């Protein structure tokens, strides 16, 4: 059976002033519907490049991406992205940032009142309905990222792409948002690809962790199945031996491929 989303032998090379730089090489990954996949690796390993290829923001030099059997090589709302630095439009309110996406994606299928309700519904999913009239400049980094997630969810994407969504947040806020994301994923069953460099985050949230080798010409080094039962609780998992074992696996991989050792 064909996978829901399949990344087929993707490679990409950038041509710059210093010649050609090969960022990714022969990446093969198949993701099922409803699956939560994390991609982890050291910075500069091309994991964000891979996400941008899936999003269609970058074009692969070789290979391609198939979503439900169809090739996707341009960006679109069926692969909504939550960017690392939230990228909310600062001149629009929280509500209008989400509403803009709702109007664009559901403008033909939903009435005005339905679009209003849908906007509020998605803001309440991330518990940002109370701050809907605030401008992005007036809310905290964690709240901005919540709005970014609401905007992406409101597009009802087939695949939700998260590019180090919590990387710029403090540890407590990050934990809150991870719990929110886990709850939303549990409720809606979205297919998610998340880029991260946080080992705990990847083990806690994912069904599978894709570990990337270091660039240049990064490729998939290892794929780890996270067979922890859901719903998961970070507190209970803290002294779960299997959780710690999986965590150690990821750490071992990353340590074995640390840039310092490779050099």
């Amino acid at each position, binding site marked *: 059976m064909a996978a829901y989303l399949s990344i087929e032998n993707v490679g990409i090379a950038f041509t710059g002033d210093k010649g050609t730089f090969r960022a990714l090489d022969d990446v093969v990954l198949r993701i099922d519907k409803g699956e939560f996949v994390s991609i982890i690796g050291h910075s500069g390993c091309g994991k964000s490049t891979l996400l941008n290829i899936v999003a269609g*923001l970058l074009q692969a030099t070789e290979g391609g991406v198939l979503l439900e059997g169809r090739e996707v090589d341009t960006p*679109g709302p069926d692969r909504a992205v939550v960017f690392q630095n939230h990228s909310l439009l600062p001149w629009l309110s929280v509500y209008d940032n989400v509403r803009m996406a709702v109007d*664009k994606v559901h403008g033909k299928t939903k009435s005005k009142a339905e679009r209003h309700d849908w906007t509020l519904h998605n803001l309440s999913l991330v518990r940002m309905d109370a701050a809907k009239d605030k401008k992005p400049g007036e809310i905290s980094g964690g709240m901005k990222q919540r709005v970014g997630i609401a905007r992406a969810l409101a*597009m009802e994407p087939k695949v939700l792409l998260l590019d180090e969504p919590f990387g710029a947040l403090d540890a407590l806020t990050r934990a809150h948002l991870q719990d929110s994301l886990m709850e939303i994923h549990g409720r809606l069953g979205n297919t998610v690809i998340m880029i991260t460099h946080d080992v705990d985050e990847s083990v806690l949230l994912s069904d599978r962790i894709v570990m990337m080798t270091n660039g240049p010409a990064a490729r998939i080094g290892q794929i780890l199945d996270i067979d922890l039962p859901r719903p998961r609780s970070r507190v209970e998992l803290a002294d779960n031996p299997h959780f710690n074992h999986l965590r150690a696996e990821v750490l071992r991989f990353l340590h074995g491929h640390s840039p310092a050792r490779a050099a």
Partner: protein
Amino acid sequence: MTMVSKIAEAKPDMAQVTPYKPAGQPSAAVKKAREIASRVLPPVLGLAVLLGIWQLACSGPNALLPGPIKVVQSTWPLIADPFFDHGGVDKGLFWHLFASLKRVAMGFALSSVAGILLGVLVGQSTLAFRALDPIFQVLRTVPPLAWLPISLAAFRQADPSAIFVIFITSIWPIILNTAVGVRNIPQDYRNVALVLRLSPIEFFFKIVIPATVPYIFTGLKIGIGLSWLAIIAAEMLIGGVGIGFFIWDAWNSSLMSEIILALVYVGLVGFMLDRVITVIGKMLSN
């Protein structure tokens, strides 16, 4: 559980604590008055000193220029009634300023629209930038009045020529600043537009314009200043009703006081134009 509630009870009620206020502090009204005085007094003093020096310098029997008191005395009819109209160019200062402002408004409106559109084009397209930027860089250094003969030859009428001079003078900073603004649109906003599949027109109105407003208004502010500089000079040459011609006419009649009065008005109007653009820009970027 009981421990927690006891601690909560032991906490003092914060609402009942009155803020510490030492005796002998000035009241709020006095503070406010001092605050206002500290802002109003320095500019008033500065102006008084300047007028004083001017009065002293021009008070001798052989002074070439009138002092401030003499200026006010001899131009009092003009100051008192800016609205008279005796036909021809014999009009009150209001009408001269109004005619100049009308030309600036038309030229500047045209250059704003054309400048923003060209700026977006040059900022968005590398090809357009390479093709047009060298031309812009050379043309923008041409002084306003150098355009006047060409424009008189092309339009054969005073008013359109003056408006063209305004247009061509003020368009460059608008183009260049808008282009910088467009080039500085964060890649994040572009990615949002790409993921949402915004059409070029939606991208222009929903992303480009709002993201570039501060840059556009920097350009508009420089542009309106240049317009006002250019119109005074252009009117001196083309004649007709207008504050520039008023100054030139006064010079030909050796009415120094009238020239000085007109300069004060020119300065005040220029300042006002600058403030208006700044205020609109602030309103739009919030």
